[in-house]
């Protein structure tokens, strides 16, 4: 297994871990958005959707562990790469022209990623945690829209919107960057990657944002 250790500790190996885990997390958020869209179907539909998932609890638990491992490996490889890169770039220029030669999203990956991480921790400790406490006739729908930790709480809803926008900024660079790391962006798939990238950095974050805006602010006002 020496070859695997060498690969995983190489700069490109760390990038490979970053890209693979990032793309798997993209698949997760796509699935998550589909689930969230059930909110528009009303309380009964949403509750029955979550209840159906709960019926497969052992499987859901296994998937949760796998997603956690993927998420942690994304964070750990990100931290390792950031530390390596800080060591490599020992001193800064008197005049910094990064904005002229690179995109905003590519330069702010650590910041946008950190905000999304804080959001995920908050999301798990509120919505996910309360979902685990629901038994019998409890309503998952009420937790999501409630004043405590749901969209009924304007601070929570506003942070949700900000986090989703920053996730979009993160994915604007991250999604296509993963394919560059895999070495396929120089091929005939370039056009397809750009189109798929737009789904993940624009459409999906916009979907989450719309749900928060609708249930947090708009639905109440009209």
């Amino acid at each position, binding site marked *: 297994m020496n070859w695997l250790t060498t690969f995983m500790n190489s700069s*490109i190996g760390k990038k490979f871990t970053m890209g693979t885990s990032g793309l798997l997390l993209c698949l997760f958020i796509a699935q998550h958005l589909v689930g969230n869209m059930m909110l528009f179907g009303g309380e009964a539909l949403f509750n029955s959707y979550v209840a159906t998932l709960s019926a497969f609890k052992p499987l859901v638990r296994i998937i949760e562990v796998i997603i956690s491992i993927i998420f942690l490996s994304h964070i750990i490889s990100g931290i390792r790469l950031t530390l390596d890169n800080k060591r*490599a770039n020992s001193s800064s220029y008197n*005049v910094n022209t990064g904005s002229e030669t690179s995109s905003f999203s590519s330069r702010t990956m650590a910041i946008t990623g950190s905000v999304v991480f804080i959001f995920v921790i908050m999301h798990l400790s509120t919505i996910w945690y309360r979902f685990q406490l629901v038994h019998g006739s409890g309503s998952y729908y009420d937790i999501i829209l409630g004043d405590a930790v749901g969209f009924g709480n304007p601070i929570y809803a506003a942070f949700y919107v900000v986090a989703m926008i920053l996730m979009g900024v993160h994915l604007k660079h991250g999604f296509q960057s993963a394919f*560059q790391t895999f070495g396929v962006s*120089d091929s005939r798939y370039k056009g397809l990657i750009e189109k798929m990238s737009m789904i993940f950095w624009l459409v999906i974050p916009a979907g989450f944002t719309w749900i928060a805006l609708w249930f947090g602010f708009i639905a109440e006002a009209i």
Partner: protein
Amino acid sequence: MQINLKVWRQENRQAIGGYKNYSVSDVSEHMSFFEMLDKLNNELVRKGEDPIAFDHDCREGICGSCGVTINGRAHGPLRGVTSCQLHMRSFKDGDTLVVEPWRAASFPVIKDLVVDRKSFDRIMESGGYVSINTGGTPDANAIPIPKIDADAAFDSATCIGCGACVAICKNSAAMLFVGAKVTQFTKLPQGKVERRERVKNMVAQMDAEGFGSCTNTGACEAECPKEISLTNIATLNKEYLKASLC
């Protein structure tokens, strides 16, 4: 025209450097940037001061010896131009130019604007060559090479190894340089034979030299005086993944 300069001065590797301000008068717009520095150095020597050290050789944009950042841009503000081919007509009378050496942990400053780029040499020594017996010089049509591959190999081979990619990268990554060197061999029949060991050795040496890793910001491509494309990094990644995992 009159040009004001804020130049990084550093006595030697160990010394702590700092910026020093100069003013150069009667600068012709037809002068190259280095001819302007030559003019300043002549004045400094006449005054008994130490001239500004900077790397240069061919002054034709092909040797890769030169390289400074001017107002934060590697090789100055123009695209696809080396420092030596930059002319003063790119600036205005009274401009202030901040002139700095390449800044990266793997490119330590030797003196003033001169940095040690031996790390690039060591990467080339680790695999940037063809060691198989290729025989005598064959006729050009003896080994058919698709034009698209020949052109891609040539494009990659135009890398002059100046280090601008490292200098401008926020991670001081050398992947555009290594990518170009790996790609130029990988595209050609003689180079393909040793592609697996080459890419593994060159990446290992690149990491050992302490260069950072690419975050695909594209700054290197934007600043490369030979306009080496980011696709070279994609090729490097693909070659390394295949060599390591397949």
